[in-house]
């Protein structure tokens, strides 16, 4: 089942203010239809997460938006321009943090952040950027000597030093320890608070839940769900599940009225001590909802 996003009323206004607007995006690799009519609207100032399994079309989508890949069909506007035709002035308004980076080994953190700032018309102060990503103590360290997490923070520093209006973060926290991840989230929030629009692709659903104002789930080259992390997948996907155990085994039942159900179980399934064995009431997490969306045939 596929859900198409309704085109919002007043498209003219949406066109002039949207950071990203995609209609019917198509891309084929050989016989594989990687993108099959994908639609997307990302508003200015929001953190927008693109979720989906490997091979769903996330990276293809993002790299088309960034101007790295060509498309076979559809309309794309990023900051009002077509990425396939846009030039240096457009790139100056963009920040891109790519997925894997193994480059820049012999220069120092300070050297490469300063050099990168010089590519842009109105860069941030390199010192402040290095401070903001928590690498002040490493400014004179060569990139090859950084840890994985420090390298990733350097990638972010290089992505934001040009003062982008729109920042793409592709799997930014892969390999981070929990503390580093939380520090990174704070950094992303402070960028959003400063007015930067952020497009985040991630495998971590807790990351999307913590950061994203809205999220889209991509499967088979289409957007299959769109909404805030709290509403993604709709009401039905979030129906609480009541679980309990009795002589016939463990039961799990979805209900919109878990309290009434628990009261009924107390009357019928409670043991001599008044407790219902194995009783739990769980509301599906974003991760449960997401897994239900990308594997619709698996009942969860």
């Amino acid at each position, binding site marked *: 089942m596929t859900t198409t996003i309704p085109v919002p009323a007043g498209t003219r206004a949406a066109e002039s203010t949207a950071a990203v607007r995609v209609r019917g995006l198509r891309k084929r690799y050989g016989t594989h239809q990687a993108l099959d009519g994908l639609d997307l609207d990302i508003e200015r100032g929001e953190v927008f997460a693109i979720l989906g399994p490997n091979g769903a079309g996330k990276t*293809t989508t993002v*790299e088309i938006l*960034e101007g*790295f*890949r060509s498309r076979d069909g559809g309309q794309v506007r990023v900051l009002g321009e077509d990425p396939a035709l846009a030039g*240096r*002035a457009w*790139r*100056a308004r*963009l920040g*891109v943090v*790519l997925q*894997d*980076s*193994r*480059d*820049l080994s*012999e*220069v120092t953190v300070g*050297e*490469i952040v300063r*050099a*990168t700032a*010089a*590519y*842009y*018309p*109105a860069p941030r102060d390199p010192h402040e950027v290095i401070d903001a990503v928590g690498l002040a103590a490493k400014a004179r360290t*060569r990139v090859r000597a950084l840890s994985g997490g420090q390298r990733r923070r350097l990638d972010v520093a*290089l992505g934001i030093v*040009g003062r982008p*209006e729109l920042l793409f973060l592709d799997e930014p926290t892969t390999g981070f320890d929990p503390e580093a991840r939380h520090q990174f989230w704070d950094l992303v929030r402070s960028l959003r608070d*400063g*007015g*930067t629009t952020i497009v985040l692709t991630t495998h971590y659903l807790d990351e999307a839940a913590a950061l994203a104002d809205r999220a889209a789930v991509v499967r088979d080259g289409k957007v299959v769900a769109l909404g805030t992390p709290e509403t993604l997948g709709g009401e039905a996907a979030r129906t609480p599940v009541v679980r309990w155990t009795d002589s016939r085994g463990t039961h799990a039942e979805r209900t919109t009225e878990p309290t009434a159900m628990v009261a009924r179980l107390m009357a019928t399934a409670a043991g001599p001590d008044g407790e219902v064995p194995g009783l739990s009431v769980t509301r599906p997490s974003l991760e449960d909802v997401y897994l239900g969306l990308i594997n619709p045939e698996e009942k969860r």
Partner: protein
Amino acid sequence: MTTLAVTPRLPAVLSVARVRAGIEVRQFLRERDAVVFVLIYPVMMLVIFATVFGKSPIALPGGAGTVGFAQYFLPGMIATGAVLSSFQSLAVTIAVERDDGTLKRLRATPAPAAAYFLGKVAQVVTVTVTQIVLLLAVAHFVYDVALPTSADRWATFAWVLLLGTAAGAVCGVGFSSVPRSGRSAAAVVTPVVLVLQFISGVFFQVDQLPSWLRQVGEVFPLAWLAHGMRSVFLPDDARALEPSGSWQHGLTAVVLGAWLVAGLVLGLRTFRWRRRDDG
């Protein structure tokens, strides 16, 4: 964000190129492999060969005297150095940079492509000039090689070096698309240059090579670069040691110029910012 009432102008290509040049030169000098196998290698070869064969000067035909071994060997090492600093260095580093994402990262910024290439040019010029100064200093002060005194010869030196290095550089950009990965780049590029060194007469006297092998070598720029450099550093009588018996400056310019144009066209047509497997 709303304070950006006027759109600030993009930095000029040359100012970005200057920044790139700083990064390129620093990266090169901090990479020990590059310093040893590109910058120092010809100097090392000069020292080894001049020390081993230094006592056997080369007789010029017709009783025109002799040329010291170091003096005969120096032009070949200058030519080798120019090819290493331009062709080998660029072919390897650009292949590595394409593989490790340097190029893709740069492509995501407003840095113009011209600034990237100008940065490379600055790096090649810096390394080539340093290398030649080292070679000339070692040849002159350690092995008593007399350096040319006429402006004519230095002019020849300048245009042969410029044309040869430029041809090597554009061919290096083109050849950088041949290695399949950054890891294999050095392994793919180094033997090409090594074979060229043997068949272009930089290690031996040119007339010691079988003529068919010499003719294969003469298809490529290194042979002409070495030929041109011999015309600068050897006495005029030494042209009798050349297979053609003359210095062939016109033909040298034509061959090097042809490689420059061919390399430029090929380099522009094949250059990719991303790996082959990356979309």
